[in-house]
């Protein structure tokens, strides 16, 4: 079996920061804050968070904050829940959540809950269980879950539960591993996993493992390294991860590395990017690959960071 080329991946992450002018990079500028979270969490898992200039990152990030309290994907971009969570997660990595005006940010988030318990991503009203997850994780990390109606939020998520045990983005929508992660994480963090039929969902999820050992996101689709996170963390939260072949998945992820130039791609021999590098490394952490920091399957942050927040020093 191959090995994880840690040094190459660290180099890859630190270099993409600098290489900003290619079309591929410019077309992602609007989600740069997500990119920062992916890059920095990967570095932390690999034990190399100290290779970045913490102050520089935080200073740039705070400029992404909008007057409403929410964060945009980059400086000047409109605020949205998705980037707000990434900002909170990055600050958590650096143990600098107190750099925020916590009430301001949590009010922005809480203000996006609708009457039926669902969450809009921003003021323009798109509803999706991804946003429920993001809102709940954000407020939990800020210790302000009491600002929303948790019961209603949970009920909305449960209304998106499908007959195959999975979850979709809105009621009636098809089960998809990404949405399943969002719903299961939100239910986990609010102590509501009893709403999940663990055996039914566990079987649906374990069937995502295809012959090559990789995981797909829904039936009859191609495997992709990012599902090593979405599917795997969901299986771990409901304690059914032993239903897949972990060794085979590790091999699949390692096969997706670019061992020369660093980085991990969606499938072997495809182009690498920071998104899949994060999910590959995070997946390996969940699979207990040696030498990696453990990552929490719900908050998607290293376990020591989460423990620091919830159990105190």
């Amino acid at each position: 079996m191959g090995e994880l080329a840690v040094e190459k991946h660290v180099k890859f992450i630190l270099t993409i920061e600098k290489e900003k002018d290619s079309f591929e990079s410019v077309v992602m500028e609007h989600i740069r804050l997500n990119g920062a979270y992916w890059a920095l969490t990967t570095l932390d898992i690999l034990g190399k968070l100290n290779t970045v200039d913490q102050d520089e990152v935080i200073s740039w990030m705070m400029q992404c904050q909008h007057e409403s309290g929410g964060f945009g994907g980059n400086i000047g971009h409109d605020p949205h829940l998705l980037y707000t969570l990434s900002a909170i997660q990055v600050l958590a990595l650096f143990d600098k959540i107190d750099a925020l005006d916590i009430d301001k940010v949590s009010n922005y988030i809480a203000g996006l809950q609708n009457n039926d318990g669902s969450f809009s991503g921003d003021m323009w009203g798109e509803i999706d269980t991804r946003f429920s997850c993001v809102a709940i994780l954000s407020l939990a990390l800020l210790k302000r879950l009491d600002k929303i109606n948790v019961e209603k939020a949970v009920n909305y998520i449960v209304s998106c539960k499908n007959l195959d045990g999975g979850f979709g983005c809105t009621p009636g929508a098809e089960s998809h591993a990404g949405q399943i992660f969002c719903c299961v994480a939100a239910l986990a963090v609010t102590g509501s996993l009893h709403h999940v039929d663990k055996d039914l969902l566990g079987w649906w999820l374990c069937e995502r493992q295809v012959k090559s050992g990789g995981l797909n996101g829904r039936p009859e689709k191609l495997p992709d390294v990012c599902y090593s996170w979405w599917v795997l963390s969901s299986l771990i939260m409901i304690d059914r991860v032993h239903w897949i072949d972990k060794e085979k998945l590790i091999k699949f992820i390692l096969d997706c590395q670019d061992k020369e130039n660093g980085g991990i791609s969606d499938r072997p021999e495809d182009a690498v990017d920071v998104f899949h590098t994060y999910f590959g490394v995070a997946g390996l952490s969940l699979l207990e690959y040696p030498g990696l920091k453990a990552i929490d399957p719900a908050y998607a942050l290293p376990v020591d960071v989460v423990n620091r927040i919830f159990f105190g020093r």
Partner: protein
Amino acid sequence: MHGRPRKAPTEEEQEASVVKGAKLRSIQAKFFQFHHTNTYTKEALEVNAKLLEMNPEFITGWNYRKLAVQYHLEAAQSDEDSIKSILDEELKVVESALMTNFKSYGAWHHRKWVLNMGHSSTDRELFLLKKFQKLDARNFHAWNYRRFVTALKNIPDEEELQYTTDMIYENFSNYSAWHNRSVLLSRLLKEEVEGYYPKEKVLTEEFEFVRNALFTDPDDQSGWFYHLWLLDQTVKLEHLLVSSWPPNGSNVNVSDYCALSPSLSSISRTLPLILCFSEAVGGINSSTVSVVCESNMDSNLIWTPISVDKSGLARTWLTYLTFSSEPMHPSRNYLVKVSIANSEGIISSAGFCCSNPSHMAFTVCLPSSNTEFDEGPDIERIDWSEENFSSNQLHSENLGLINSFNELTISGDNKKTYETNAKIIADEIDYCRELLSEMDCKIGKLTLARLLLAYDALSSASRGVQDQNMFQYKEILELYHDLMKLDPPHFQYYKDQYSLVFLKQELANEESLLKYCYQYRDSTSLSNNSLCLCLRGLSLSQIGCIERLLWVQMLDLSNNGIRSIEGLESLQLLCCLNLSNNKICSFSALEPLRLLKSLKVLDISHNEIGAHPIDTRRYLCASPLSHTSDWKREEFVVSGPEMTIYWDAFSIFSGLNLRQLSVTGNPIADKKFKLFLCKLLPAMKWLDDEKLR
């Protein structure tokens, strides 16, 4: 980000990319100028449209368009033509963006936003959807949008059902279509729409419909998942009382069980009463369950759901019967009658009421005088070695008590439904066997195993007797055995199912159960009942059938492959538990033990606690991470820094009153941890082999 081949770009390619990147940057910069100055001129909108065509994922771009629309609509006032023209332009921009990327959330949402204004025609929408679904029949954005449009246009579910039929005939491997079909059909069945009643007729037709897909391409999963849903619909059993302790028809000595009551009164007259249902229910209280005794017994009972979560629902419910202190006739047995007759208040998690009345009764033998409860002489250490257990003749009283199964009484109507559904399943079993005779299909085998189990559940329920052998038990086990070989990545899944079936059969009747019952060497350790259920070394990877184990006080599960003890919380009489040499990976996996207030002896030695950086039960136990801890944070923090490492051990053990604990052979069990345990459990007498104090 997806599906691009990995090749180092040539210098030409790199240059072209930088040029394209610079172009996009310049458009973005222009756009931001307009956006931040709230400029919505024709020129500005064109720049924005160009930007969205190049990058449909640029969210701020879509926000800007909404602001522009609002601005222009205000100017247009109520001029219907202007309004239409403004909104039509938006729909054009969306369509063009979708052509670049038909998975752009921003684009689809913008279209919905426009249509929600109510001024645009919806005629084109279904045509557009057909186009996108031809490009990708699994595009969930398109399917979601379809649901949005059909709701807007009030298209009836039957029509949409026909659409899924067409899509499925076009390509059987369309999970999205099958999914939509299940959603629509559920609604039609629930609302008992004309043509979709009775349920059994619809299910039979659907089984036939899906059979086409399964026989055409058995390796495609889509049809099989739908088939599983149909099976689930066919096996819906009413939730029923399945077992109890004391068991129906048994005779119990109250003084034997006083030690199991939490508030140890000096007058030995309390008895636990446990009810176990086929699924988790709520609403068990003294008005839905009546308990009557000839003697004076406090009938104001408080029922507790035995559940590790905070849902208020549980399969197992517990109460304590307290008998009055008046002197009783020494050799008389008193009848206790339990009825669940007025049961509309009892509901399952799916929201169904229990309409089946259940009755059971048992007799209790009360102590002749006000005897003080005697804890007994200094209790010695339990030694789990095999030589201490003998399978001698068991006392006849014991036999009545180990058969905790209730005889189910099913009403006439329901019986007919069960029989009809059993027939449907029987037919499916035949079809499945036919398919498997032609080819070796993994998911077909799994389905056959599930069908056989379903048939067993339905037919035994309709016959009203639980205490018997499973239907086709050997065949089911063989199927799982084959699957372990046929589909190695999912080996553990099949192993777990195998363990459950094996256990169910082994505990199926009294004769079989007795094979596993042993007497512990000496009765001074636990009242009169030192009967142990010994399930050691059976290669079990999963435990189940807890409804058959309510009577167990001493349980040996050692030397198996157990990783989870979900369900064990129902064994409310459990005093001694051996889980050594298993695969328990964390203390959080022991969460069910927190509810076993009678537990005194626990052996978790030689497991894997402390060996794993990832805790798979982290969110399935009470803790601050899931906002469900019931322990006070102050109490936790003050106790010292070890608490952060041992928080889950703290959570499990601090509520228990263990006398004997074994933890050796777990990586976490070093000297520091053992010291922590001694502090946490002051009443403990033995830790590993050491006698304390």
